[in-house]
């Protein structure tokens, strides 16, 4: 968390909502329950992320959603300094990690890396998911961040 606020990044960034066609709704509903839910093909059992209407591996439309453990490792990262949104004016630097999930076919997710943003970030480091609920947002949503595993 940033020292100033209750969230890692300041409030005022766009709130994530599912598309009108509902493709990603199960994921965002899952985060509200503190669960990481991603797509898995019922036909070939392959994992898929981000969501799509068809399985890229076997072209089945029979895609389900499964809960995965919030454990992964850092695949890449960036440290952002220049504010590209008014809400981020005093926010830099902040750390962003691309995390791969070995238990789910190495699909990748983006989140912020909690802790000192200036600390070195190592590709390959193990991280665990941290849910950050924004209950007062309209509409409410929950982000999924990462912290270095103990």
């Amino acid at each position: 968390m940033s020292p100033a606020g209750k969230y890692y990044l300041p409030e005022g960034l766009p709130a994530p909502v599912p598309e009108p066609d509902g493709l990603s709704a199960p994921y965002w509903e899952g985060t509200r329950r503190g669960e990481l839910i991603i797509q898995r093909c019922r036909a070939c059992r392959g994992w898929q992320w981000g969501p799509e209407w068809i399985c890229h591996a076997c072209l089945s439309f029979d895609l389900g959603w499964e809960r995965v453990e919030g454990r992964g490792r850092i695949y890449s990262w960036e440290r952002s300094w220049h504010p590209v949104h008014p809400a981020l004016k005093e926010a830099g630097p902040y750390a962003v990690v691309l995390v791969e999930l070995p238990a789910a076919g190495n699909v990748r997710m983006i989140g912020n890396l909690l802790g000192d943003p200036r600390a070195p970030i190592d590709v390959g480091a193990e991280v665990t998911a941290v849910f950050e609920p924004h209950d007062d947002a309209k509409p409410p949503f929950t982000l999924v961040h990462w912290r270095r595993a103990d």
Partner: protein
Amino acid sequence: MSTRTIRGQVAIAGIGETAYYKHGQAPEPEFKLALMAILNACEDAGIPPREIDGFASYSNDRNDPSRLAAALGLPDLKFSNMQWGGGGGGGAGAVGNAAAAIAAGYADCIVVFRALAQGQFARFGQGPRVATISGDAAFTTPYGVMSPGQRYAMRAMRFMHEHKVDRSALRAIALASYHHAQANPRAVMHGRPLTAEAYDASRWIVEPFRLFDCCMENDGAAALVLVSAERARDLRHRPAYLLGVAQGSEYRNGAPSHNAPLYGTSSFTTVAPRLYAMAGVGPKDVDVLQSYENFTGGVLMSLVEHGFFPPEASNEFLVLDNLLAPGGSLPLNTSGGNLAECYMHGLELQLEAVRQLRGTSTSQVPDVDVSMVISGPMVTPVSSLILGSAATR
């Protein structure tokens, strides 16, 4: 079976541009800038504007061909084409689409253009000012990943990690563009030289990119006139023959939420081999290269994926002397490019590639026969092309 190719069939006969401005500073509206660049390109070619019978552009250019054709009084609009994809990835692709249309007989004189006036319209390097966001952007924007630099920094970071590339390699790319811009009076950064010390002292935008690793944002317009090779021979300038063009991107490059299987890539791993196959030349034959700098990390990967050096040789190859005209082993971005001439979404690079074949660059490489352009790395689709002199045709 006949060989399907545009090799040698089409040439760039004219190039034109407006003055280039810092973003928001163009004194003219965007549509007028587009018209001015198009007329300048026709004048350069020695072709009456009313002979234009087609337009091709990319990156959702706002100046649509029907309005252009009406404004210019064109008697018969035969080809209107927009290359899909954002950023500058479609720059060479748009030229390829126009060339294919000429070779196929759809049209005879096609203008490829790009116009930008960011005071009139939104800037690229700023995030969305909206209350909610959905789709793929919902997985990145709330985490502060929304500008092009933020979207692509992790691709470059992964590549640099995998291949132990030093930041000095990125620095050499930035310094080369700034060096060449000092000889080019058109360049927005003309008279603003960059030293290694100033580069090192510049602020971070998003690591691994410093300020000078990032393209400018500019206003202006640029245009190219394409005709058949036969027609081009009778015109004012030495024709720049199109030897090859390729576009696309590798397997699932556009997978959502940064899930492209090959992640540390400029998206050219399958495009570059197709380009060379059509052009009938290889990287060793390239005399001068313009490689789109959205960010220097994209140039690094573009050069590797186009076979100029293996990834593990990045640190040795990417030193300033290698990249400078006239004598470097691979003169790079000889007008100043997106970093220091003008960010005209890379179309200014195509104009410079033509100048190098004509012998009229402000940083001329001697005896250029093969002049290459790489468009828009890391986005998808991307594209690249190779131009050649009459000797290569």
